[in-house]
């Protein structure tokens, strides 16, 4: 049979998706490269190596203790809520994640004030029962307490998902072999959930290392406060970058731990046939103890500090015009950050099949503290400022949004990736068999399927941007205040009652998003 050879039959098409993913990955890594470059090739720094070690040691202790505390609190709460029935359990199931709406610095303000030597609680204790608490909140111990209250939800959510994913078959097998509830937790459920535990604790530790507002207020000197201080007090990008360098290394390490955790998770869920766990009722004192524990977490992480901020805030009338302006800035940045970040993360997600490296690079950004990200951008932004003098305000805002995007791209990527698992490779092939190009198929199939996940990702970014402090402090244009910045300014001036209002506003803005997310998580079950 004669075969006609058509020279044009095999047009080469440019593969757009991998290029977009490469672009997004590059955007995430650029500020980190800036940090390394500044630290290694910068001029002399004013910071003694000794100081860096001292700050690093504090950071390490803080990370270790918060890691242990969140691991315990988050795991226990998840185990109680998933496997047992007790009064209030259905409410706690999602309410225990609500402290995610509260910025850590707001908790720090409230607790520092409550437990101050001249604060209401200790005044009352001295006057009434006649004794004084032997501790305050300012110091390492206080910081561990505050950050554990703020960050236990990361572990709680990860462990909750892991316990829900565990098949009851395995737990029943354990019971048939003579394990009671607690021994089943220790010998079966916990080891199976270990990857999720590692991932959750890694997130909590990342946030701990990245925190500036809370530890700074509680007078704890960490590497992150060092970064901000080197920049703000000494005006030295190079010194700041040197503080940032160990943080960057730890970020990479934590990322590695978190990735390993994730790998284990898939294998554990796919193993056995999944059946919903049977809930064990906890009656009487044990039920009350479970309720008490969950309530205590919720009180410590949300109700007490937020209540106290409200109470103190009521005594003063806030500077409404300034507050509303700051709120509009926060809201605007949150929305812009969410849009840009989700757009970049979507590029990553769509191209990641062809370019898995890009996603890995982007996740390094997530492990990097915002302050480090900002310093990295600052190091390279000088060039832009010199090229476009007089455009400081616009460039400042753009850099800020860029910093958020570079840091949060991986956080947004995760739900989008998960959403895209609904698109099987054969669906993409089907789109091609039906006349679409590779890019066209991605737009017609993957994008609409991931729409819900993109919204979820946007909310996650929105919440994080609202709470973000150090990067905003460093990169914001002159006199441009967000709610977080204005809360921090009041707190630095020891005007705590004034700092309450912007903190509460952040919580009010973030709360609907957090509730939406946690309800969604609570409703999701494997296989549905």
């Amino acid at each position, binding site marked *: *049979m*004669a*075969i*006609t*050879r*058509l020279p044009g*039959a*095999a*047009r080469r*098409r440019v593969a757009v998706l991998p290029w977009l993913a490469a672009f997004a990955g590059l955007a995430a890594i650029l500020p980190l490269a800036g940090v390394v470059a500044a630290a290694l090739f910068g001029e002399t720094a004013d910071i003694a190596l000794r100081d860096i070690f001292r700050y690093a040691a504090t950071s390490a202790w803080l990370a270790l203790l918060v890691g242990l505390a969140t691991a315990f609190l988050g795991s226990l709460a998840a185990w109680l809520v998933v496997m047992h029935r007790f009064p209030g359990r259905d409410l706690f199931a999602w309410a225990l994640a609500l402290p995610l709406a509260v910025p850590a610095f707001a908790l720090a303000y409230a607790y520092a004030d409550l437990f101050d030597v001249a604060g209401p609680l200790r005044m009352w204790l001295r006057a009434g029962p006649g004794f004084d608490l032997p501790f305050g909140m300012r110091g390492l111990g206080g910081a561990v307490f505050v950050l554990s209250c703020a960050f236990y939800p990361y572990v709680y959510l990860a462990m909750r998902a892991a316990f829900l994913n565990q098949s009851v078959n395995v737990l029943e097998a354990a019971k048939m072999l003579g394990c009671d509830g607690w021994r089943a937790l220790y010998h079966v459920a916990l080891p199976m959930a270990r990857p999720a535990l590692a991932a959750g604790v890694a997130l909590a530790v990342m946030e701990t290392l990245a925190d500036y507002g809370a530890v700074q207020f509680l007078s704890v000197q960490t590497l992150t406060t060092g970064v901000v201080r080197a920049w703000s007090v000494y005006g030295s990008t190079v010194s700041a970058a040197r503080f940032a360098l160990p943080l960057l290394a730890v970020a990479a390490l934590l990322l590695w731990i978190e990735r390993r955790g994730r790998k284990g998770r898939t294998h554990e869920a796919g193993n056995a046939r999944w059946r919903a766990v049977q809930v064990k009722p906890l009656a009487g004192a044990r039920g009350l103890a479970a309720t008490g524990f969950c309530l205590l977490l919720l009180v410590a992480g949300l109700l007490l500090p937020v209540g106290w901020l409200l109470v103190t805030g009521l005594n003063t009338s806030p500077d409404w015009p300034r507050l509303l302006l700051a709120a509009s800035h926060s809201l605007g940045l949150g929305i812009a950050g969410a849009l840009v970040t989700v757009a970049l993360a979507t590029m990553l997600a769509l191209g990641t099949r062809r370019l898995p490296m890009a996603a890995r690079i982007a996740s390094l950004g997530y492990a990097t503290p915002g302050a480090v990200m900002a310093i990295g951008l600052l190091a390279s932004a000088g060039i832009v400022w010199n090229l476009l003098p007089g455009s400081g305000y616009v460039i400042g805002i753009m850099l800020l949004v860029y910093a958020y995007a570079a840091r949060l791209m991986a956080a947004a990527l995760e739900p989008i990736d998960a959403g895209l698992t*609904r*698109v*099987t490779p*054969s*669906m993409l*092939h*089907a*789109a*091609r*068999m*039906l*006349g*679409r*190009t590779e890019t066209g198929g991605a737009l*017609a*199939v993957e994008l*609409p*399927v991931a*729409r819900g996940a993109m919204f979820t990702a946007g909310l996650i970014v929105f919440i994080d941007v609202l709470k973000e402090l150090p990067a905003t402090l460093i990169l914001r244009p002159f006199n441009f205040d967000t709610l977080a910045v204005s809360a921090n300014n009041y707190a630095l001036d020891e005007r705590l009652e004034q700092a309450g209002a912007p903190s509460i506003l952040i919580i009010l803005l973030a709360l609907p998003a957090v509730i939406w997310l946690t309800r969604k998580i609570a409703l999701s079950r494997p296989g549905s």
Partner: protein
Amino acid sequence: MSSATLAARGVSRFYAGRHAVAEASLDLRAGRIACLLGPSGCGKSTLLRLIAGLEPVDAGEISIGGVLMSAPGVVTPPEARGVGLVFQDFALFPHLSVADNIGFGLKTLPAEQRRERVAALLARFHLEALAGAWPHTLSGGEQQRVAIARALVRAPSVLLLDEPFSGLDGQLRAAVRTSALTDLRAAGAAVLIVTHDPQEALLMADDLVLMSAGRILQTGRPQDCYLRPVSLAAARLLGEAEDLPARIENGVAHTAFGAVPAPGMADGAGRVMVRPEALGFDPSGAPVEIVDIAFGGSFHSVTLSSQGVIMTARTVAPPPPVGTRTGVSLDPMRTAVYQGE
């Protein structure tokens, strides 16, 4: 016979130095259904993907309607081939309704024509009532009808189906198969169905293609492939087959269970492929002893021993009890003789 709609010549595909498909050649003709049969992992799905253009060929040529589509260094992208593909998991788009799934391939058509075309396919596949339904609410059989309708929407000259019935169970499978067959023939395309189920392949195929370990063993009518397999490997792809040692003398192959004609074959050693239903009880035939009987529902599986050789046969009538010595003969129609050890 009309000339082939699709012609593959000496197509090969290598993965890490090992061939997944080796020098495969086949023709597909308009209005005819070809079945590609082989065990899982034999390369039949890869061959399908090569034809679809989802993978490049490392050697050989594939042309459709006389136009070269694949050759080393030449890959016409799948969207430009005029080939329809029905996936094993159906791959329906979860975010689109049944009607929108079917209309997905008509992006360039004006809305009015698009609606008409979709409506026509919905009617032909009895899916009108489900036009607005979401894919996950459909039964397996319904999903399959949508998948086939969707693959036909661009009127492809070649339609490929990858294990289209494997996701359906038992009774449904037979019913769906019959109705799908009617629809596929009506479509007028050259159809290639990949399957690992010999029954399915025999029942559906106009042309059968047997594949094993990346190579095409035999191509032909189902009867010819079943009754005159080119080799024992080909025979076994289509069902049980006994392999008996034989001695060929004067155009007759002698086995422990009787003789069959072997016209034109040289004297010497040989092998005889015997389908289990080829054996009949015949008191004047070769002497055998019945050593085991199992009841298989529509048949009895009878294990026989003769001159130290064991074989299993199938009979519809109840056989004599175990231990009986009797005679058997072979139906030459259901045996094939091969020369050599």
